[in-house]
């Protein structure tokens, strides 16, 4: 029972982490390696707003989400737009930006256990014999809600439809008057905002650390590679698989081994089906 519930929550965490990365990649083909940096940035930003500026929780969250969105858009216009289409350059440049961002926090001394975010609701509930804190329940609920939101957003709003058009065929989308630069910038922004949202939800479970940023990137990559980059269904299935596998590993072995599960999952999926479980990319064209 414990494994079932905590496994579900772990899957929800992974899905939340991967969602933003996947949104950006699925739409624009930009692998945003600065994703972990945005996650850490949001965590510290909320902490600073609450503790140094004495703002309310919800206001801080709102400001951080908006700022994360702007950072995403800024990275696009400052860096990616100039090298768009050269996948390797994009990866190296965003990786550089991400590292610079994360290590800057380390330089300014944001290390230690005092950096933690408050949970949205305190307290515990019991499901059967298992006690779960409300924050973890919130994560589960929010993961479902955000997935639903992204689904509806990409199908029933003008921007969302533009996203899907760019994802399917950029040139045809251009002929319909969709500004591809603007749309990709927005997708970077939304991806970053989703990453920020996941940071706000997940970080109360532990401390905000710079290393956490690298872990987030690794987890997001693992889920996306296993699920197939650019596929929403794949993300859900893959986060379910890896999430339960990790929880079971932590339960039967040790927590140290949890990260290795993702490695083994990646290695297995790459040997068996390199395009991922539910990839929308054409296998020959994009990957091999």
């Amino acid at each position, binding site marked *: 029972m414990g494994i079932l519930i905590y496994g579900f929550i772990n899957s929800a965490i992974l899905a939340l982490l991967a969602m933003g990365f996947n949104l950006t990649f699925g739409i624009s083909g930009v692998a945003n390696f600065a994703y972990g940096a945005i996650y850490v940035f949001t965590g510290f930003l909320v902490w600073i707003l609450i503790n140094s500026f004495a703002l309310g929780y919800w206001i801080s969250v709102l400001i951080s989400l908006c700022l994360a969105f702007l950072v995403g858009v800024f990275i696009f216009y400052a860096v990616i737009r100039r090298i768009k289409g050269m996948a390797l350059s994009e990866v190296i440049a965003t990786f550089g930006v991400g590292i610079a961002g994360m290590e800057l926090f380390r330089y300014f001394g944001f290390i230690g256990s005092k950096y933690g975010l408050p949970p949205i609701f305190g307290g515990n509930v019991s499901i059967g014999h298992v006690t779960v804190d409300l924050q973890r329940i919130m994560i589960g609920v929010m993961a479902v809600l955000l997935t639903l939101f992204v689904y509806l957003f990409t199908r029933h709003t003008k921007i969302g439809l533009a996203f899907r058009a760019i994802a399917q065929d950029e040139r045809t989308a251009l002929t319909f008057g969709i500004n591809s630069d603007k749309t990709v910038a927005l997708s970077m922004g939304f991806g970053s905002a989703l990453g920020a949202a996941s940071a706000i939800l997940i970080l109360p479970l532990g401390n905000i650390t710079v290393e956490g940023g690298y872990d987030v990137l690794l987890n997001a*990559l693992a889920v996306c590679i296993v699920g197939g980059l650019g596929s929403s269904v794949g993300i859900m299935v893959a986060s379910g698989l890896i999430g339960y596998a990790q929880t079971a590993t932590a339960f039967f072995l040790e927590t140290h081994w949890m990260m290795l599960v993702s490695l083994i999952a990646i290695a297995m999926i790459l040997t068996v089906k390199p395009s991922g479980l539910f990839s929308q990319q054409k296998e020959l064209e994009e990957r*091999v």
Partner: protein
Amino acid sequence: MEAKKPQLRKERIDRGIKVRADDIFALNSWREVIYLVGPRAIPVVGLLVLGPFLSAYSREILISTASYALLAISWDYMMMAGLASLGQSLLFGIGAYFTGILNHYFHLPWFITIPIATLTGSAFVSLLLTPVLRLRGVYFSMITLVLPLMFMRLIEATRILGGTEGLTGLDSFPNEWVSYYLIMFALLLALFGFRRLGDSDYGLIIRAIKDDDRSVMNAGLNVYWYKAQALFLGGCVGCFVGAFSTHYDMFCGMPGFALDYSIMPIACTLLGGMGSFAGALIGAFILVPLAEVLRAFGALRIVFYGGFLAFSIVALPEGLFHYLSRKYHQIERWVEVR
């Protein structure tokens, strides 16, 4: 009527010494021989002769510069085949641990451990990455970024090979000149060897794989086999650096998989210019001493590398070496457009 401003364009003319290709020259005088040999002699003479005249501290920096330059050359070679690795630290770490194991558990001397670790380490990495070789571009980068971090976790979790402490008290080189000349000869060998290889027919295939792998397949060549070879060759260089550093520092441990060894070589190569190997060398000789100066700033160093990476890929896509070699080999002048 206002006089029309003459429009100018820049005309570039190859120097007469060049016959047709980049590597064929017609030599008529000693001056031209010097013109050709000069730039090539600078690294050879500089690296081999300079050593004894430097202080021990500068020599240490020179050795660490050479190590990064080798890693950068190995990154450049893998990049030539279209393998964009974000994890040169994987090569470094594997080379270091293989040497550490051979020296710590089997008590082999350095002149046996280094060659063995170089070859087996590289073979191990190539085997490890074989399933990923089919992936192009971004996907390969992702895996190479993940792997060294995973190895760190693995060692941390299983506490094998000394765990977080690493293997300490390993043999060092008999004297500092052995270490100095070993790394310098390796650097020169890698530099000129890879440059030579890049100009050969074999190098043409390797470069073609990056530009258009499907046309290489059309030519009836097995792309994956060539990629595996490129990975092995580049891996040898990376693993050698790991093996060398293990004996030099008398230590191998988890820092071998640190991000430093992944980012720095890329930054060096991008600054110096990709695909020329000499660019990697120039970049290393600018960035590593600079990093040494910045060491006082602690974590800011990595901020600097990261920012530099993004900056150089956006603002200096060509790199220093290509710029310099153009200036050296060509006469430029402004001519009026008629």
